[in-house]
């Protein structure tokens, strides 16, 4: 497998990109301004696109170049643009009610990373791959997943929840590039298109939410209980 015997330069390049995306997830977690989330998400997607290209180059997977371009176009430009338009139209700048202070969510996020590292180290040891980039990729994959769920829980603006879901998927994308670069192309292309549909759905729903419920905060969604 590619990740097990990489040359040192490639390994450190991949590590750098993975860690930078994790840091961007923390920026999303620590800020209350919705625009910051969006910029961080776009930057994260660009990093993942660059990572795809790098994996394609070092591992000789030419189809990954195509995925890199698609990721950059759809997840890096088109999705942020759509969300930007929705933010602009809805005229919301930041989370008004905070369930958890930024500092506390950062600490919880850090604990999530430690947990992810424990799991990843255990799996790495099982496979005899301790100390390789595999452990790092698994850590970043799992911790971005956990941070995404954390964002879904403590944020309640509709836009933040959409971005939280996208972070969930970004984590999987990033990990999959390093761990299973040979995963059938069809799947990855369809996932890209699938995300487009998701955003179209969300765009519609956000509009519905505002016209019919009068707010885009999920705190107001409390009619259906029990």
């Amino acid at each position, binding site marked *: 497998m590619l990740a097990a015997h990489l040359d040192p330069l490639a390994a450190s390049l991949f590590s750098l990109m993975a860690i930078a995306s994790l840091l961007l997830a923390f920026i999303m977690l620590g800020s209350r301004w919705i625009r910051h989330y969006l910029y961080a998400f776009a930057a994260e997607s660009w990093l993942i696109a660059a990572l795809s290209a790098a994996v394609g180059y070092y591992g000789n997977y030419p189809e990954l170049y195509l995925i890199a371009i698609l990721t950059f176009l759809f997840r890096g430009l088109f999705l942020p643009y759509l969300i930007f338009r929705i933010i602009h139209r809805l005229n919301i700048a930041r989370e008004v009610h905070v369930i958890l202070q930024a500092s506390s969510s950062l600490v919880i996020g850090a604990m999530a990373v430690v947990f992810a590292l424990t799991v990843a180290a255990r799996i790495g040891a099982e496979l005899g791959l301790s100390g390789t980039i595999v452990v790092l990729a698994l850590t970043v994959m799992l911790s971005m997943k956990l941070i995404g769920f954390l964002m*879904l829980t403590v944020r309640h603006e509709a836009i933040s929840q959409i971005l939280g879901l996208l972070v*969930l998927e970004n984590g999987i994308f990033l*990990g999959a590039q390093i761990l*299973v670069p040979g*995963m059938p192309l069809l*799947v990855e292309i369809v996932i890209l298109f699938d995300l487009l549909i998701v955003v179209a759905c969300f765009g519609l*729903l956000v509009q519905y939410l505002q016209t019919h419920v009068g707010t885009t905060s*999920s705190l107001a*969604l409390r009619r*259906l209980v029990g």
Partner: protein
Amino acid sequence: MMAGGFALAIALAPAVAIVLILLTRRAAVAEGLNLVASAIVFPAAILLLVAVRGGPQVYWHGYIILDGLGAWSVLCAAVVYLLASIYAVGYMRLLDEPRRLSRFYALFAGFALTTLVGPLMNSAGVYWIAIELTTLVSTFLVAFEHAPESIEAAWKYIIVVSGGISLALLGTVLFYWAGSLVFGPSYAMTWAALRDAAPRANHALLLLAFLLVLIGYGTKVGLAPMHTWLPDAHSEGPAPVSALLSGALLNTAMVGIVRYLAVVDAAGIGALPRAVLVVLGAVSLLVAALFIVRQRGIKRLMAYSSVEHMGVIALGFGFGGPLGIAGALYHMLNHSLNKSLMFFGAGSAMRSYGTKNIGGIRMVARRFPAFGALWLAGAVAITGAPPFGLFASELTILRAGMRSSAVWAALLMAVLLIVIFIGFLNHFRIMYFEPAAADRVPSGQISLWCVVPMWGALLPLLALGLWWPDVLWSYFATIAHALGGTVALAGAAP
């Protein structure tokens, strides 16, 4: 080759209907087209079931698999699709929105299409995409009535289910990775390939991947504690949509869990996954029992009953063995029939009395004698009383449980089923026989379009309860064999 033709008919009929509906955009035409599509799908599903008895067949470069489990789940979905399409004709006219009706039917056929083809996907990745598509299409159906409640339900539905499903994607990637350590970096990720790789793959990795997949698809199945979207989505969509969500969609997602269970069984590490599945099933029953007893909304009552029955099916597959699998599969069909009947009844009662609250529905027995008797029979059936089909399947699952090492789960299941029986029928006693406090007079008659599908669900249910055909036993035995033979929860060797 026969089976491939039937599968094609199942996929093409709704697809062509969608295109024609979008082209004509007339409510009356859309109604008819959808009905015709469902009338084609149903016999094709039965023929498909017969055609795959010889063993699994693979089509279209290995992307489509026609096997017993998939065909069975397709049959469950096709039954609900047919009944719900008939019911929709009567029910949707009451909404009095003729302009949006064609859009409704296009979405409805699309939703049926995704649930019908999902179980036939041979690639774990494409199966995930099919399940995600069901969510996308059905969100719009849940939000169709545009009331604040339906939009709230749709929002919770898409957020909770997408979040859960993304865990299943992570699990899928990890499964592929585990396989790639055996086969090399690129291979077709079919179910068969995963099962071949499993014995040589790393067990810790497989366990982690399976647990992620179980939580992910478990969200879609509505197993507690990931069921939170289910009562909202099922109660706020139009009644035919609720029937399709409950009777067809939940089974489609369950198929994925069962297929992955076969993979970990092949690796010989099925004990922990089965135990987790049994615990999730038991928790679902417990949560459902608590919420059924104190429920106030009529459709929410039905929704929690779905959580209950998905818990029962999870217990059946968790206990495993030929008996557990046969019981769970039989329960799938019985539940699909019965839950359609219940949602149809709830929808009609809701429209006639103009309220979703159990408190507002009174004296059903006197106001609608014929319809009331039918709905009441369904309520007796869904609580697992004889002589209906659910009694037979629940008893089989209980027997499988008593033979397994998880006897506690079987005993808990028996106790909770009794609690649910009392709680559920108490609501019906109040609705049928208690006099109304404020005299609310229900309006209008219940149309024939709405009553006929209820008969269409009740009669087969009665037949399946009185007579469990030998053909089905041997069919279930074939499926159980294909899923890994006689692997069951530890200590259950028959």
